[in-house]
């Protein structure tokens, strides 16, 4: 066999196949196109319009009480992802727990929490309406705050008790200070000067005043410290840290896509059928 004969002519190879395809389809092409368009149109109008689904996502910053975490990050993530939390959420939204309810099912299947930073988690949820999605995120935050109340309420009460004790102490020290000041200013007209005894008393009162001053300073610092624990940088509830991001989540396929698919499959089906007929004809010859 010569080398020339083993080379495959590109013209013959590609042209031959196009010719085969053209002859196989032949005059059926207009019919194929009409039927394809018809099938696509039927598919377009017969496809049920998908109900919209909205996805909402938010960064939730976990609350603190007196600088301490009200709930650990991993515990919060596990809590939100847990079934009991989802049940509570459904109850809070007045949704039935039944699986056949679309809103309930969407919520149960989609509610997820993931750690984001050391004290924030990302919570995402899908719902049938934008309002419901936002409401679900708000309720997640509220439920987390309710859970944290077991820790936050006693902790706040403890700090308040300490503040009350410090306030009492400050009041007592203030009264003592006033008494000592009164002693230093007390008129001694009727008394005779007693020389060294007076000096000693003055020194003692002065010393006690100084000590009282120190204790008062410490008590006031302690008061400020305790008060600062209740301030916004150290005590705050769990809250959504940033704007809630709501987007229209993909639901079931769009009618145009279904129509396109139906059209493509119909046309390819026709084409393959025509080619198979051509193949049979070639075999029979």
């Amino acid at each position, binding site marked *: 066999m010569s080398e020339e004969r*083993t080379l*495959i002519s590109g013209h013959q*190879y590609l042209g031959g*196949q196009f*010719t085969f*395809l053209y*002859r196989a389809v032949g005059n059926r092409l207009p019919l194929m196109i009409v039927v394809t368009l018809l099938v696509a149109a039927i598919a377009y109008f017969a496809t049920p319009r998908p109900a919209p689904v909205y996805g909402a996502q938010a960064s939730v910053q976990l609350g603190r009480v007196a600088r301490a975490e009200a709930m650990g990050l991993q515990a919060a993530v596990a809590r939100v992802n847990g079934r009991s939390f989802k049940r509570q959420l459904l109850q809070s939204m007045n949704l039935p727990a039944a699986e056949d309810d679309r809103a309930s099912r969407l919520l149960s299947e989609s509610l997820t929490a993931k750690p984001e930073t050391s004290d924030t988690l990302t919570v995402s949820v899908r719902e049938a309406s934008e309002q419901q999605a936002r409401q679900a995120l708000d309720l997640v935050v509220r439920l987390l705050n309710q859970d944290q109340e077991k820790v936050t309420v006693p902790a706040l009460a403890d700090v308040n008790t300490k503040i009350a004790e410090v306030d009492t102490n400050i009041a007592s020290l203030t009264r003592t200070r006033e008494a000592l000041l009164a002693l230093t200013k007390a008129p001694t007209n009727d008394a005779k000067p007693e020389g060294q005894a007076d000096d000693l008393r003055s020194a003692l009162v002065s010393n006690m005043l100084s000590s009282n001053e120190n204790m008062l300073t410490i008590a006031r610092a302690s008061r400020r410290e305790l008060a600062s624990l209740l301030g916004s940088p150290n005590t705050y509830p769990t809250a959504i840290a940033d704007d809630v991001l709501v987007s229209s989540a993909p639901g079931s396929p769009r009618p145009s896509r279904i129509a396109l698919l139906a059209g493509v499959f119909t046309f390819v089906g026709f084409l393959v059928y025509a*080619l*198979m007929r051509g193949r049979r004809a070639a075999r029979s010859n």
Partner: protein
Amino acid sequence: MIVSSLASDPAIFALLSAAAVGAVLAAIAGIAVTRPALGIIGLFIFVAFAWRLVSVLYIDVFGPLFSEQLERDIGPGISAVPIAISQGLVIAALLFSFRPQRLQRLFSGGGPKLGSRLPAGGLDLAGIAFWIASLFVAGLWVELLLSGPIPLFASMERFDYSRLYGGPLHNLLLQWGPMLAFQLGIFLVAPTLNDRPFDRRFGYLFASLILYLFMVGHRFSSFYIYACFFLIPIGAVLLGRHAMTATRRKFFPGNTLRNLMVTGAALIFLIAGAVVYSYIVVRGFEGAQLLTKLSQRILVQQGEMWWMTYERVFLRGDWNSGFAAYRLFFDPIYPNRNSTMQLLMQLALPTERAHFILEQGSAYTGGWPEVFFELGGPIGGFALVALSAIIFSEFMFLVVRCIVQERFATCFFLTPIFFALSIDIVSGMVNSFIQMTFLIKIAAALVAYVTEDGWRLSLFSCRAGFDPLPGLQKEA
């Protein structure tokens, strides 16, 4: 649970993992020795399988190990057992699809060759393919020289080059490169089907492509995937020789073996050089840090994502088919990229970190069989793995059949589907299967197959000089 009862004896863990890994590696080695052609065809998956297995075994035996990417400890355990079973299913499916009797039937047909049935004239098909590919490769080089700095000399990462300077041809190559390499491989071996030598022009084109990738900062993964797809047609041709002869001399005629070895050695040298250059010059690692980075890259990163799936699905029973399917098919972060690794990274990492890494265009290694266990759980996952193995191996046989029967048009249209299935077996990418474009590719491949089959039938069933389609003419 079995695992917890064994937890007290790490030696049993290690033995079980080592036995499972050893069995699969032995099977791969057995194929390489006794059926080298099949080894070449399956090189892409066998290398990936072996590397992942070694990494998983390392994590199982030497754990707990710190993973830099996951920022946590992983291992020890018996995570190698389920992944070894999964890989074993793929190997079994391949051996079944490429069973000797079937190959005998495929290659013993003899029959007239395509070239002998077509009238000569004009440009030959290989010539047309060569000029089109040459224009593309030349365009790539021109684009590289005109578009800005050359990453190799500017110590630039390939991602940065693609993002900042990559032109349309460069982006086209990144998207279709392995498939182009596959086509080059087909035309390289096509003359050997007619007992003529390799068409070396396509070898030079492939070498030029590899050199281009080297210049634009690519390292192991690109060379590996391009080379494997280029080698598949060579394996297909050798498969025929192996089916028909048992001697090594006939199996590798002439200088084939020597040429293959020289090419392989050059490619390995290039890969080693590219990796060393990337780590030492581009990224500036040295000393202990370099060793740590290399050990993480080679021994930890290949198996760490499987470890996370194993821990979630097998140890904690924590898997959610609905959630996984939703994230994979309906709501991935980047729908045009592999959603499997996006899902796995979302499950394994804090959200912000996963998003940050994905935003850079990067992703971790792995995905198969993780994706099927995330979808099907610890039992159903094996069924999905078996299904994917059967589809892949049968499709691979179909591609090989088309190569040896000189069905070039069908091969051309089957290539993207074959590529998607191969990527699925290595990185678990499943979202490509539901894309409209993929369905159109399947439809096009089906039409091409039936057209070429019918045309060949008409060509081979009529005598030379006669119209091959008389019946059709009548119908038309």
